[in-house]
């Protein structure tokens, strides 16, 4: 019976393309999570111990739509402005400081330990002092975000300024480049590439700092809205605002990862932690 030796046409394990499987399973996971949430909100509706109220997903969505129609754009714009200014200042300051400390042996030896000593004091711990110094306005928040970004990016900047391959440097000298030319075409691009990566890693640290700063020194922005709905015990609005924070962070991270892949295809850093 020669036919039995033929490979049997079994159902291929890859009948669905994996992409489709991922979408279906992902949607199922999301559906399970939403179902669990709905169930929990029904169970807790009549006094559920410590968690005194958990709104269902529907009321959160309703609140989200209501908020999107009123103040969301204004609050989001304010928070993003704080974030962008602080982030740019922090990254620029870190690039300059990192170049100085990384390229000059003596400055590095003298001041890097000081930077290392300040780094464990997270920018969040500076919130009360920043309020004492700069009050509740834009300045204090920009200062905090700048500090948060600076403390992350400085490590990348120092590292980048030192990691110019020795071969390249020797080749450049051999080709007759002077110190300034070597700096401009070797050290500076290398450092800036690392600074860019550091800035992406610092995104979440900076965004988290915006949230804390706005929660504590609440005058405007998403964080201030979050505190004001919290103080009026409006749980659906609290959750809706949290979702806004999450989606914004996700979009920023996505945009930056995309830009990084486009600008620096040779660097596959993966995602790193906030610190």
């Amino acid at each position, binding site marked *: 019976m020669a036919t039995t030796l033929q490979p049997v046409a079994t159902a291929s394990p890859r009948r669905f393309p994996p992409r489709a*499987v991922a979408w279906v399973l992902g949607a199922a*996971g999301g559906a399970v999570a939403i179902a669990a949430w709905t169930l929990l909100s029904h169970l807790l509706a009549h006094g559920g111990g410590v968690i005194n109220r958990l709104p269902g997903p529907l009321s959160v969505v309703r609140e989200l739509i209501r908020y999107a129609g009123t103040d969301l754009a204004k609050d989001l714009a304010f928070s993003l402005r704080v974030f962008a200014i602080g982030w740019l200042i922090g990254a620029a300051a870190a690039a300059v400081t990192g170049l100085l400390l990384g390229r000059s042996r003596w400055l590095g030896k003298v001041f890097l330990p000081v930077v290392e000593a300040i780094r*464990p004091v997270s920018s969040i*711990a500076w*919130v009360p002092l920043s309020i004492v110094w700069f009050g509740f306005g834009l300045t204090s928040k920009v200062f905090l975000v700048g500090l948060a970004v600076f403390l992350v990016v400085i490590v990348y900047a120092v590292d980048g300024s030192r990691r110019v391959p020795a071969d390249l440097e020797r080749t450049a000298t051999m080709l007759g480049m002077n110190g300034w030319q070597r700096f401009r075409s070797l050290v500076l691009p290398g450092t800036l590439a690392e600074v860019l990566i550091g800035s992406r890693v610092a995104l979440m640290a900076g965004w988290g700092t915006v949230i804390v700063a706005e*929660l504590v020194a609440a005058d405007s922005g998403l964080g201030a809205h979050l505190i004001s709905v919290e103080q009026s015990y409006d749980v659906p609005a609290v959750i809706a605002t949290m979702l806004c924070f*999450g989606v914004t962070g996700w979009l920023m991270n996505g945009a930056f990862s995309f830009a990084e892949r486009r600008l620096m295809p040779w660097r596959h850093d993966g995602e790193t*932690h906030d610190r």
Partner: protein
Amino acid sequence: MKRSVHLVAKRVLLPLVAHRVLLPLVGVACVLAAWEATLIVYRLPAIVLPSPWSVAATLAELAGTAAFWRDVGVSLYEFIAGYTLGVVLGVAIGMLIGESRHFRMAATPVVELLRFIVPFAWIPLTILWFGTSYTGKILLVAYAVFFVMVVSTARAVIHVEPTLSRVGTMLGMGPWRLAWQVHLRAAAPMLASAARAAAAIGWIAVVAAEYIGASAGLGLMITNAATSLATPVVIAGMIAIGIVGAGVSACIGLLSRAWLDYR
């Protein structure tokens, strides 16, 4: 012989001391001098910027009071309870995500959405739900730590050398034993560094939560000091937060190194 000892001292020890101790001290001295100079030049009152000496004196004074140690104890308790919970759950779920492709596909959208709601955004909700009790802060720290551990554990398990898994299968290991005895151990070094990063994030989450709603703790101490414009106490508190955070991170580094060596 004596000559060579002398030479070692001169060539190795002296530069080492000079570079590792003296130069950083010069840096610290420069910063302190700049701080003092700012005070003198701009005639700043102590409310805005106290002198470094008064901050040091305040820190010493605080360290002598029982209330300060109670605040440290409360913050540390919240941190340790939440951290343990978060690491255990995070590694468990991370292992599941790393081991099972289907579970990974199902869990990814939910994990990704929640991961980007940074822990700080949960603070108002935890206050609404749990008041100023410890429970809210413990859960907040656990949340912060959980997502760091889930993401790193899953990535570490996925990237375990495939040869190891094949050897394990060949030796007749089932999927559970393979996960527990091969993948977890191979992932251990990455887990250890993730655990340190998670500790830093968890410690900040405690402090931030205490700013907004707490009955005790270091975060409450410095916000209270800030509202009564006791700036020396604020800065001393910040230093204390930094020292405790660095200490916690060092402890976790030691623990994980001991654990890795044991393996």
